């Protein structure tokens, strides 16, 4: 057997040592605006890494279900994104998610995409239409409950 400079066990330890902090940073980095409902929740309707990568697909499927087939109260509802992620200013008024540095805008600007969602959809929570009445999550039962990122062994989440 070929002798190598680094033994198998040393390599394993090295890998673990490299991966653990990287994954910890990845798992715990979150962009949630202050004073938003999302800031008080453990995770989104799906684990954060999945939401980051796939939210556009989830929304697109959801929109077709709702518009074409009339299925409401879906998990991936844009109005619920807004309800949860819109922050409030010092006067307690909702701030648009497309304002500078806000939840949607910050990331979309960084990756240089211009989604057309907000040509039609509002960018602050709708307090007048009675979203709870319309079969969306009313807040009594938390859809985020019991849904958390399953972290690699050895990584603690606060």
């Amino acid at each position: 057997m070929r002798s190598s400079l680094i033994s198998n066990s040393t390599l394993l330890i090295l890998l673990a040592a490299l991966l653990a902090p990287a994954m910890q940073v990845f798992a715990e980095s979150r962009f949630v605006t202050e004073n938003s409902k999302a800031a008080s929740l453990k995770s989104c309707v799906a684990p954060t890494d999945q939401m980051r990568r796939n939210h556009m697909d989830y929304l697109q499927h959801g929109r077709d279900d709702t518009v074409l087939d009339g299925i409401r109260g879906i998990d991936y509802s844009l109005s619920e994104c807004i309800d949860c992620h819109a922050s409030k200013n010092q006067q307690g008024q909702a701030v648009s998610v497309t304002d500078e540095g806000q939840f949607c805008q910050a990331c979309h600007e960084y990756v240089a995409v211009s989604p057309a969602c907000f040509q039609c959809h509002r960018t602050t929570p709708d307090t007048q239409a009675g979203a709870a009445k319309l079969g969306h999550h009313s807040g009594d039962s938390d859809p985020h409950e019991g849904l958390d990122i399953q972290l690699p062994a050895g990584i603690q989440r606060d």
Partner: protein
Amino acid sequence: MSNKSDQPNMDRRKMIGGAIAATGAMTIAPGVILHAASVSDEASAGADAKHRWGMLIDSKKCADGCSACVDACNTEHGLEGHGRPATDAVWIRPVKLKDKQTGRENRLVMMCQHCEHPPCVDVCPTNASFKRVDGIVLVDRHRCIGCRYCMMACPYKARSFIHEALTEQSVNAPRGKGCVESCTLCVHRVDDGVMQTACQEACTNEGHDAILFGDLNDPNSEISKTLKSTNSVQIRADLELNTGVRYLNL
């Protein structure tokens, strides 16, 4: 002793592969949780082909000078005018008809008639205009390119075009510049099981009871019973569109 073989050390490869597989499993695991969660969540069942939603409007009861249904519709869907009647969005409009020979006047409200064979759907080049399985004719704004063929095709002048950029729309009716729109039969309420449109609610609250919403396919619904026992008409019945909105005492 040195190994001259150019074969890779499989022990070493297996171990690295195992480490990668272990990392992969962790990232796949949340997907399993996600799937289970989305199944357990309660979403409404959606449109059902066994219904056909329709409306009956009693021209006699439609009170002159009343605009309760129009106001309720505007509030419900966040429709705001810009003081330009020719282009402002109108989903429901009061119309006065006068027979020039006899002088008899009729008042009624006109909106999307939710045809069984909608001309707007026929002409739409992008399939944005569509009829749901339960008979409600809608515009999918994700597909609408604002060509306005449907506005030309509609015999009832039921559709509006949005000329201005909008903000702070109602969640009941997301809407924006460059799309065509019309009465949705309060589809957000129907999907939620609320069997009363905003206009009907307002008309009833005003004490006029001129608007009746219901299931045309259900023989026991109030609208079906009334249609069976009275002489209702379709507007432009000659076009054979089989409208979902019918009129009484016209």
